[in-house]
């Protein structure tokens, strides 16, 4: 039995992903340990979102392996056939541990904010409904939208919707949180309120993988920065290091262009 403290929260080994003839990830390896906050940077088309989505099998890699807390996801990767996960029950179990926050929030529009938060805890994790509601209300208070609990997603601003989506992810008691460009769909004045919530989560020591364009956030909050370019990792290291002394020219260009 490996020491749980030393088992990586997420381990990606040599991930390859193609769409038809076009390969977007050319063998990417990435390890996230407990408490890591990894920001994944890169221009559009670099494969950063695809990499994140390979962790919870929203995209199934054509080659390579994915482990969550030491448990490898069993994959069928036969040449000439689309790759697929062999056991959906395993995938569902691991997905419940790795909560995801999406660029376009993806709150369920037919459910109130409170119902959005208790949906998966009650129906996937089979938690007690009353407890789930009590916890959901606390989470909504924490992200500052307690008064919106009976409103529908369409009645909330983008920033409020994304905070609700983060609360929905937290309601799963995730051991890893995946953020796919969480602020990219927001008006500039609403970005701050979402980043503040994420800063608090990072300060709690949560394991987070964040695909983002927010350079300042990546620099200040993450414990490690990964820069993806054309489907390979071009630069990787502590943010203080890589932002001060980038080894890769592409990353230097990237940060000077985006500040």
């Amino acid at each position, binding site marked *: 039995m490996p020491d749980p403290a030393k088992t990586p929260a997420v381990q990606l080994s040599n991930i390859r992903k193609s769409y038809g003839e076009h390969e977007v990830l050319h063998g990417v390896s990435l390890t996230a340990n407990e408490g890591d906050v990894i920001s994944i940077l890169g221009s559009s088309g670099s494969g950063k979102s695809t990499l994140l989505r390979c962790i*919870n099998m929203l995209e199934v890699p054509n080659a390579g392996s994915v482990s969550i807390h030491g448990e490898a996801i069993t994959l069928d990767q036969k040449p000439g056939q689309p790759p697929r996960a062999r056991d959906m029950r395993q995938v*569902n179990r691991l997905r419940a541990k790795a909560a995801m926050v999406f660029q376009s929030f993806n*709150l*369920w529009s037919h459910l109130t904010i409170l119902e959005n938060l208790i949906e998966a805890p009650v*129906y996937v994790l089979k938690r007690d409904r009353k407890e789930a509601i009590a916890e959901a209300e606390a989470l909504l208070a924490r992200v500052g939208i307690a008064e919106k609990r009976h409103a*529908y997603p369409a009645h909330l601003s983008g920033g409020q919707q994304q905070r609700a989506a983060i609360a929905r992810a937290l309601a799963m008691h995730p051991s890893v949180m995946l953020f796919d460009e969480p602020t990219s769909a927001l008006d500039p004045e609403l970005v701050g309120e979402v980043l503040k919530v994420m800063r608090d989560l990072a300060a709690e020591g949560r394991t987070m993988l964040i695909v983002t364009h927010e350079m300042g956030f990546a620099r200040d909050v993450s414990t490690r920065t990964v820069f993806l370019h054309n489907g390979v990792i071009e630069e990787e290291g502590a943010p203080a290091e890589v932002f001060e002394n980038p080894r890769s020219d592409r990353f230097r260009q990237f940060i000077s262009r985006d500040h």
Partner: protein
Amino acid sequence: MVIDFPFLWESFTTLLNGVPLTLQLTALSVVTGAVLAVLLALMRVSNRWWLDLPAQAYIFVFRGTPLLVQIYIIYYGLSQFPELRHSILWPFLRQAYWCAALALALNTAAYSAEIIRGGLLSVPAGQIEAARATGMSGFLLMRRIIFPQALRQMLPGYSNEIILMVKSTALASTVTLMEVTGIAAKLISQSYRPIEVFICAGAIYLAINFIVVRAFAALEYALSPERRPAPASTADQPEKARA
């Protein structure tokens, strides 16, 4: 021409006797048709060609041929097969009532399947993905996330289909059934006064469909709280003040 009002009233009350049969045929075919339609729609969106193709073929045939032809084929045609005449279905299929109900159900299933499929496809992919990302899949995902949203989306189209079905039951009169139109035809052959009789028949269908339209409007309102303006959050204020 002069309208004979006493005759008009007499026709109206006589035609009302056909209303229960009209409603029965509608209800029976809509309910069984809906069950079949859900199956067909799921086959269509299954992404498996061996399920999709038969459903497509079924829908093509039943939408592409006149309902009247379908009723005739079932009523006159099925009795030509001795195997069927000796089967346990024969006590049903020898009766015009069950033949008409079957034809109506099979027909509405084809149209409804496409309405349901449209509803299923209208659910935003991102919301389905968000549900998958929490570990939902299969029937649970369908029941909790996809179907409730698809249902709201398909209501306007489906109310259209029900209205068409109410009117389509008139074709059952061609296989001897005495629903509203059947009684109307009989009255006309006795009185030679088509105008009064058909005005009454039309008014009866109109009244039934008025109820259908209102019922669907109410259902749509009840099922779409998220499309109504945001409730004033005043209800939350006292609680907030206490906390």
